[in-house]
């Protein structure tokens, strides 16, 4: 009897969902013939249907879907897997806004390298893993998840949403940057002006610097991608121009290196003074690096740990390449975190609504508002006032290019490991 009730509840809920979808206004195509639209069955079909819905329609569909699922199994929850704790805050705000989802959204913190085997296993077995996934390893995403068709994209539309080309398939959620930061109280804001200073060699007018602190790419995948991108055509172009400006002469290719990027990598790696084990701790410790003005390569987003201190110093005591100082060559590295839906998701409409909320102004503010170093893929969402817009960072930094990383990985990582292993 109980089961029959559950089944009836599910059927009724689904009827409501599709009824609402069919009655939808604005964005939906009105039914102008007698043939009923095909009922979306797969997650991909539901995402396609959701992309045509208004927010109200999507909410109704998500609500009905969740209620039906809970009626069928009271333990049902919406699992949001992500590396960034911003999603935890988004989930909390989402539950406040959509009260019918209260206590049903569960945030699961998933570190990239530890989460990839989970996604791999779920993809191979075509099994449920989560309803929402936010990951950042571009190569893993492209070659293991997208090519296999396991993770799907939903792109919201409407007045509040605007995306740059190339950021919707797959759907970018938030973009991050890692830049060179230092305590400027004694060494000044202009300590670093040209990226070639980081090789330690003196230039025509500037001195080489021997105080860079970087997390080893052997333990930090993002840094490995950054190092590989230093050998890319874009980096070669930037480095060649910066070389001329720094040394006052044209770059002459060294046959020992494949290109100027490889040469820069070799000299930069040799000159790194300190290989820190945690960006977070190192940014916290910038407070104590006034004397040597240690140049810390870390996520600008880590400034929240620096700024979290209630005592001195203030934000003015910090300089960041590309932020409040111009550096020739490149200021750092820009990379994405994607918001995706597994094709085995149990609550795809809720997933779409969740992503829509995360990318909205309200959702972005809830997750990452008031913090440096977080840039929404929805260009209508502005970063914190004192930060630069994403467009600016894209111009001053190397940008992660998954196709280049894929094609150059074999040779570049061997070269990088050779430098690190000396």
């Amino acid at each position, binding site marked *: 009897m109980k089961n029959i009730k559950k089944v009836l509840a599910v059927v009724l809920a689904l009827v409501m969902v599709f009824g609402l979808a069919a009655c939808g206004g604005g964005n939906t195509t009105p039914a102008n013939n007698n043939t009923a639209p095909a009922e979306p069955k797969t997650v991909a079909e539901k995402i396609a249907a959701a992309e045509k819905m208004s927010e109200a329609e999507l909410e109704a569909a998500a609500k009905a879907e969740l209620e039906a699922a809970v009626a069928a199994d009271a333990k049902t929850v919406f699992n949001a897997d992500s590396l960034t704790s911003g999603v935890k805050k988004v989930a909390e705000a989402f539950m406040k806004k959509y009260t019918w989802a209260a206590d049903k959204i569960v945030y699961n913190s998933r570190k990239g390298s530890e989460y990839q085997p989970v996604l791999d296993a779920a993809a191979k077995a075509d099994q449920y893993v989560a309803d929402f996934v936010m990951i950042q390893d571009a190569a893993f995403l492209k070659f293991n998840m997208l090519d296999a068709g396991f993770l799907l994209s939903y792109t919201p539309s409407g007045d509040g949403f605007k995306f740059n080309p190339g950021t919707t398939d797959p759907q970018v959620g938030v973009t991050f940057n890692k830049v060179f930061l230092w305590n400027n109280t004694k060494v000044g804001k202009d300590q670093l002006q040209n990226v070639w200073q980081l090789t330690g060699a003196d230039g025509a007018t500037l001195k080489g610097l021997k105080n860079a602190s970087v997390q*080893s790419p052997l333990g930090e995948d993002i840094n490995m991608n950054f190092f590989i991108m230093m050998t890319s055509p874009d980096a070669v172009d930037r480095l060649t121009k910066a070389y001329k400006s720094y040394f006052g002469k044209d770059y002459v290719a060294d046959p020992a290196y494949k290109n100027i990027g490889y040469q820069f990598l070799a000299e930069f790696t040799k000159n790194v003074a300190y290989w820190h084990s945690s960006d977070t701790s190192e940014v916290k410790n910038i407070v104590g690096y006034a004397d040597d003005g240690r140049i810390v390569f870390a996520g600008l987003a880590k400034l929240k740990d620096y700024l979290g201190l209630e005592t001195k110093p203030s934000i003015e005591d910090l300089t960041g390449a590309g932020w409040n100082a111009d550096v020739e060559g490149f200021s750092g590295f820009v990379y994405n975190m994607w918001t995706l839906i597994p094709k085995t998701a149990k609550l795809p409409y809720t997933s779409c609504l969740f992503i829509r909320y995360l990318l909205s102004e309200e959702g972005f503010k809830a997750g990452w508002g008031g913090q440096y170093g977080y840039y929404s893929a929805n260009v209508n969402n502005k970063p914190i006032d004192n930060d630069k817009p994403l467009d600016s960072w894209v111009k001053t930094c190397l940008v992660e290019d998954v196709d280049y990383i894929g094609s150059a990985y074999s040779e570049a990582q061997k070269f990088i490991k050779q430098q690190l292993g000396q």
Partner: protein
Amino acid sequence: METKTKSSGNRIKAYFSKPANVITVIFFIILLAAVVLPLITLLLGSFSINGSQEAMYVGGGVKNGDITAHHWWELLFSKEYDYAKTVFWRPLGQSALMALYACAIAVLFGGIVAWFITRSDLPFKKFISTVFVFPYIMPSWAMAMFWENFFKNTQINAGMGILQSVTGICVPESMVYGFAPCAWALGLHYAPFAYILIGGILRNMDANLEEAATVLKASRFKILRKVTLPIVLPALISTVLLVFSSSISSFTVPFFLNKSSISSGNSFVSISVQMRSLVNSGFTKGQGYVVAIVLMIFSIIILTLNSRVTGKRKSFTTVTGKSGQVSLVKLGKARAVIAIILVVIVAFFAIMPLVSFATESLCEVSGDWSTFSLKYWLSAEPFEGSAKGDTIGILRSTILWKALGRSVLLSICVAFAAGTFGLLIGYAVAKKRGSKLAGMVSNIAFFPYLIPSMSFGAVYLALSYTEGFKWLNGSYLLLFIVGAIKFMPFASRTGTSAMMQLSGEIEEAAVMMDVPWGKRMTRILFPIQKSSFISGYLLPFISCMREMSLFVLLIPTYTALATTVLQEYSRTGLTQSANAINLLIIVVVLVIQFIVNKLTGASIDKGVGGN
């Protein structure tokens, strides 16, 4: 024909009438399924293309799942940018050397302290014995962190450490970062392990053997060389095996203590760091598996050595059931001096890291007492935008208390299973010394220790997504199974060592009196070697309490266990809370150890002779 069948039936019946045979066969089957599966997966992974990323890396049109020898060739022989040399051969050689140094430090330090505690009239035994095991309860990186905090100095641009701030002394960079500090940190971390294993044997050793040598006017050194050392040899080799395997595959210590610039010549990239880098990248997973297999081969060599010692009956029966009054060596005038030196050293390496955890959890800025705050312990208000109040003071966090409760429960269950399995395997191996099957069971039982935790977890993760095993996915039962198998080697080693010491006469006497096997185990064998067996339960418990890598792929959410909450806080910059949890885990382990001591009268340190 019928007679032949009857005769073989009788033989089988007779074979299975002996408990040791039943145990051997059952564990052979269990271990074959539980241990060989991950081994085969690793081996296959090293000879196949693991995903599209790797196919792209290998090139030549290979596809996911294709068989290839590329990973082996690339890692062992590639000369492009000195790849094989830089990524494999040099790190392997250096790491093996580091692990040997760590073994030497652990065995010497742990062994010497064990000898003083069990065989001398040293004062403050209880204090030394209790405190000496602390470093083993802590995660290994805690010792590395303490090492850096103590020795770092401004001359090497690493900030002021404790030594410099107190004495003004700046040690050279090679004492702070690189090869030697890694060996020291690991050696000191595993010294309690040597202390537990060697001390357990020394304590239970029949003093008559040494006394007989003394009567025969053998010198003290000769007694040590000819009597004591041969007796503790099985435990010594077990210690070397466990410490070597752990040290060579330790990731956190070499990663944490490798901060020197490359130009300083002090940079040390261990094979474990290379392995993690290879496995974490989708492009080079197969190469990571190759490294894991090679590391296992290293340990197998030591394992073979160990088997030769125990398998050919070169071990010595030292627990005979007869009087074993221990006469303590009188240290004379050196007594006080040795005691003071030991107390200072032991307190320094065991208590100072705990103090450092406590201070780190109480200061907003590391080492700056003007930023003192109790909020990471007591705050009821969330101090970071949080969901469900999990970033409030840890003592008020329901999520943490629940996670800690689950950790304790899981560790108790794992310890019970692993400890009992180990004890039974030890019994079977001791009873069937020389038997090939028993030898195989003993060796296979050790293999989980040699498989990197993450890889071990990954195999069971894949299994939990397989048809027929899906009910295990995300369950605590899966954590229990994986934990029980992974930590069984501790128990099987201690169980085997302890059983090997027992004279067969003890059980034989009971057999003649028709005492059933269960009663013989629980009333005779277990009580005699209680301290060693309890160690076999406590070691998996401690290891499970502080384990993270093994479970991280299998847990349903980060709030599942105390260590995963700790990792989450550490990752999100809440280092004070992470340090507080670390301290809490250590305190919980100590409390449970105390309870075990009160209930059973045995504990790790008491087992060695602390009381």
